[in-house]
């Protein structure tokens, strides 16, 4: 169903109070849409958000396509971001990426058929001293090795 429930609507009203205009709250509201919809902005929500923020549908579409984080497809239960930017890339980021690709049999931009994992290749995550690293969902990025990834994937599969 398109539209926020009452509890989230309260958060939205709180957000509107913190900006001079409703449109200013667009990014925080899109983050709420994604939080409530498995990490994406599904069909139909663009119109709803446009009305909520008193702006045009075209404006919303322009914004949504500009920002990398705003997705049209849901993420898996565990959304893995693998950094291959400069410091991580020079410290084995590609090997980590390729290892995850092989292990999960999906490429960046895709989700495993069981809906458990999705993979995204990203630019610097501001934690380069931990290179090479991955970030899972909204957690802090963590230094990884091929072995630590194997163990983690196994554990998550068991937990389901």
């Amino acid at each position: 169903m398109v539209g926020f429930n009452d509890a989230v609507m309260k958060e939205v009203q709180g957000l509107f109070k913190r900006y001079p205009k409703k449109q200013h709250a667009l990014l925080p509201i899109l983050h709420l849409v994604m939080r409530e919809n498995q990490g994406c902005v599904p069909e139909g929500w663009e119109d709803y958000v446009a009305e909520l923020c008193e702006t045009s549908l075209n404006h919303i579409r322009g914004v949504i396509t500009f920002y990398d984080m705003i997705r049209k497809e849901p993420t898996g239960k565990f959304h893995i971001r693998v950094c291959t930017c400069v410091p991580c890339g020079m410290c084995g980021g590609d090997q980590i990426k390729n290892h995850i690709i092989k292990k999960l049999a999906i490429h960046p931009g895709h989700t495993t058929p069981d809906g458990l994992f999705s993979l995204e290749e990203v630019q610097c995550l501001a934690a380069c001293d931990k290179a090479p690293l991955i970030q899972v969902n909204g957690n802090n990025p963590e230094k990884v090795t091929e072995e630590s990834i194997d163990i983690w994937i196994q554990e998550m599969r068991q937990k389901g």
Partner: protein
Amino acid sequence: MLQETPILTKNIRSPGYDGSLEAYQKAGGHKALEKALKSMTPETVIEAVKESGLRGRGGAGFPTGMKWGFMPKNTGRPSYLVCNADEAEPGTFKDHFLINRDPHLFLEGLIIGSYAIGCHHAYVYIRGRSQAPAARLQTAIDNLYKAKLLGKAILGTGFDLDITIHRGAGAYICGEETALLESLEGKRGQPRVKPPFPATHGFNACPTSVNNVESLANVPIILNMGPDAFKKLGSTNNSGTRLVGISGHIKNPGIYEVEMGANLKSIIYDLGGGMRDGKQIKVVIPGGTSSNPLKPEEIDIAYDFDAVAKAGSMLGTCSLIVLDEDTDIVDLAYRTIVFFNHESCGQCTPCREGTFWLKNLVRDFHDNLGDQGKIDRIRRVAATMFGTSLCALGDAAAGPMKAFVEKYPEEFRKHFI
């Protein structure tokens, strides 16, 4: 042997410090805020920051006190202070270090800065993917409200202030201050044409100052030790300390605080511990990927704005990416240009097309399809990009590519067809 100078990191470096409000106050926090609000006028605060010689830590090194001094007074419109916590320059992680480990230090600076420029609603713009740091910051802000250090009549004075965290959504360009303001207004993060500058037409077309996290963290320190003592730290025109982030093939990657003007080579060897496995350095990126590479024979210099500029690069965000002898310079150049091409906002033809062409040209070397003609073309495309686009991203993409082919031609030759 170079040692750290823990000023900004004084709390963080003391054992058991957890960054909570209680811990911050126990360590003497909020003294500067009290001093500013109770015994200084906004003008004298700005004067002290000017006196200290503090230059912005976000990359450009513009004097913070001067920036605040430009804010027009009595315009009848609200003024805004916006803290730039986007931190997306590859290699840079110092602001997140402060946010995660001692959030109250820069928040104190943010409150003092707001008082100085007459702002009653400040924003912290933090990168979208940093959910955990943003949540931690929200807790810190909530605690400040509870302690009546935010909200109405702070410390019983007539000063009111709200702080709102605004999360970005994954776009490096939103670190550029006018793109950041667009993004804060719920728009695509595309830099504005300047002038008008944010000081007169910033957030919601009102007077606005955008300041980096580390810049603000210095403000309470300046008020506590006094501008003169602060000026004694560092080198001429480069007062204070810097949080240097070291990454790459270094033995001990991490954040180190040094006085500005410390010797670059000593930072790498004494603090970073030198290279892993006893290898030699091949290249040092001294200020994030926007800065030109330095060769090992060029790093025996003072690490401050002026000396690094004189060496043909820039201090930028003080992010040292140090890479060893096994590094493939073409691979490094390719990753760098992939980043800039991905992050170009697409408004200016030279930047949008130039980053795309440069990426394709460098990729040819990456695929061992290079030749002399392509080296010349990299230089020509880069030359066209300099100074022809709206914001600094265009130049930041072109500069390192030109420098890579000029400084390491033999590395590119290895990838000839």
